């Protein structure tokens, strides 16, 4: 699979087709048995997730684990004092995404977790971002806010964006330039955005 600078990619596929596994493999938190991963022509297959993150690779998790740490302290651990300045620049999104910087990341609702991941995405300004189901389980208001945050990111730092989703709806708002369809851990189909339309009509078969 290949992802080019600043383009948007959609990854679709039925449950268990390997979408999240692929995302984790790129991030380095899923071991791979075969193959190699290159980032800007550099072989990163053996790099730790931490180093990949520092190169500018980001994963917005489908499920944020329960963490007895506030977002503020987490960002402080990553960036030190600089974190406050960076958060300050995103003030409007702190409000927009209802981010409570001081609350421990425990007992967050599905929607709150999605917004948290989106906020981290804006904060980190990665070169390459995978958003794993940023739209699942969120209400319509949150959905709009998430789309708005993604739009902002594209204008502001224009990353390569890989969106994994079950729902085609998000691609009506964020247009992909390329689509991968996974099945049984393999790329079953790939092509332009018209692929989404055909899946909508005929399913994955």
């Amino acid at each position: 699979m290949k992802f080019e600078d600043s383009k948007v990619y959609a990854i679709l596929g039925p449950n268990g087709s390997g979408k999240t596994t692929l995302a984790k493999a790129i991030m380095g938190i899923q071991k791979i048995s075969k193959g190699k991963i290159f980032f800007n022509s550099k072989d990163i297959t053996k790099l730790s997730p931490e180093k990949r993150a520092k190169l500018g690779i980001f994963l917005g998790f489908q499920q944020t684990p329960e963490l007895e740490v506030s977002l503020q302290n987490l960002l402080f651990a990553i960036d030190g004092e600089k974190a406050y300045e960076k958060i300050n620049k995103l003030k409007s999104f702190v409000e927009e995404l209802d981010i409570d910087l001081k609350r421990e990341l425990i007992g967050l609702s599905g929607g709150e977790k999605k917004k948290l991941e989106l906020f981290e995405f804006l904060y980190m300004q990665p070169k390459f971002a995978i958003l794993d189901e940023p739209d699942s389980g969120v209400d319509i208001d949150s959905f709009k806010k998430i789309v708005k945050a993604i739009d902002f990111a594209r204008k502001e730092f224009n990353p390569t964006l890989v969106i994994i989703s079950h729902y085609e709806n998000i691609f009506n708002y964020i247009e992909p330039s390329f689509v991968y369809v996974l099945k049984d851990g393999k790329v079953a189909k790939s092509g332009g955005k018209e692929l989404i339309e055909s899946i909508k009509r005929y399913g994955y078969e």
Partner: protein
Amino acid sequence: MIKEISKESVEELSKEKGEDSWMLNLRLRAFENFEKSKDPKWLIAKPNLKDLTVFLKKEGTKTSWEEIPKEIKKTYEALNLPEVEKKYLAGLGVQEDSLVIYRKIKEQLEKMGVIHLSSDEAYKEHPEFFKKYFSKLVSIYDNKYASLHYAFWSGGTFLYVPRNVKVQFPISTYFRLMIEGEGQFEHTIIVLEPGAELTYIEGCSAPLFTKSSLHAGVVEIFLNENSHLRFITIQNWSKNVYNFPTKRAILRKNAKIEWITADIGSKVNVVYPMSILSGENSSSSNFMLTFSPKNTKKEGGAKVIHASKNTSSTIISKSISIGYTSFRSMIRINPGAKNSKARSVCDTFLVEKNSVGKTFPHFEILEKESSVAHEASVSTMDKEKLNYLEAKGLSEKEALEVMVHGFAVDVLEKVPLEYSVEIRKILSLEIGKKVG
């Protein structure tokens, strides 16, 4: 002067100190009881008493910097302490500047009528006053290690705050340490007269060097009506120490105590500060942080006796375990202690797969019109959390650090800033060792 544990050593110590016969007799009775007592059931690890020696400090004896264990030196380095300060925290001498500060504080306290002496001085200078409180709350027969304490007690702090005096700055043993050094069986007495307020900090922010392998202090606290004490302990003894202190407070009407305890150091540590709520509306709260690095065992906990109406107690315990931690509490609500409330929360964070965290809450509720609540939780640094934090750009060590600090924050925010900063550093240092 190093002596084995014997009746002769007790007699010699008492003679050396030039004590009266009542003190000598008390020491001997305590020693007799120590010899015939069995180890308390709660003891999680026993020190080898056969090899135990007591260190009788003679005036003017000093240890050389070369004798300080390497590990402690390393910790001092990590804390970025200047050389002079390191030496002096290790008990090697007194820094002139600090002496000046100490004298200023002493003057200020004297003006307020506060008595702040070492317990040895208090015994000599105010014998009747001292006798009124000494061993009145923790009996010489309380437990085996309290008996041993009374046989060999030396040093410690005596603090008396007169009626309605509110001491605005925390008083710490730090200042005492500079002058005296700390004994291994120090005895601390704090008396607050009605309406008095005080924050007392016991222990040191840097690991104390001690030659001794057993440390058994006793703390007796008397809080009169409407008085308020914050008693902060930063325990960071070196890792060859068994620490079994006995701490107890009795509270009159409307009095309030906050025990804030950070147990970071020592090899084996067992401590349950006890509050006896004997006056109406008195209240006790415990905030504890217990940390067990590898190969250490820590038991923290609290005892509260609700002996009057409308009393309340809170225990918040946070244990971080690489080795072994346990939480043990005893809460009793006496008959007639109507409308009393007790609440305890104990959370454990297990750092490694084979880290141990146990809880032993014990309740004796003898009054129907009272309420008791207990919550316990365990969290771990599992693969999922670690993966998440690494993916966000943290190393394994940083990930553990952020989790541990996040977990400890409820207690750390109760500790004065300079101490919490150093506790964080020590936690990070130990976690660094774990991760390699």
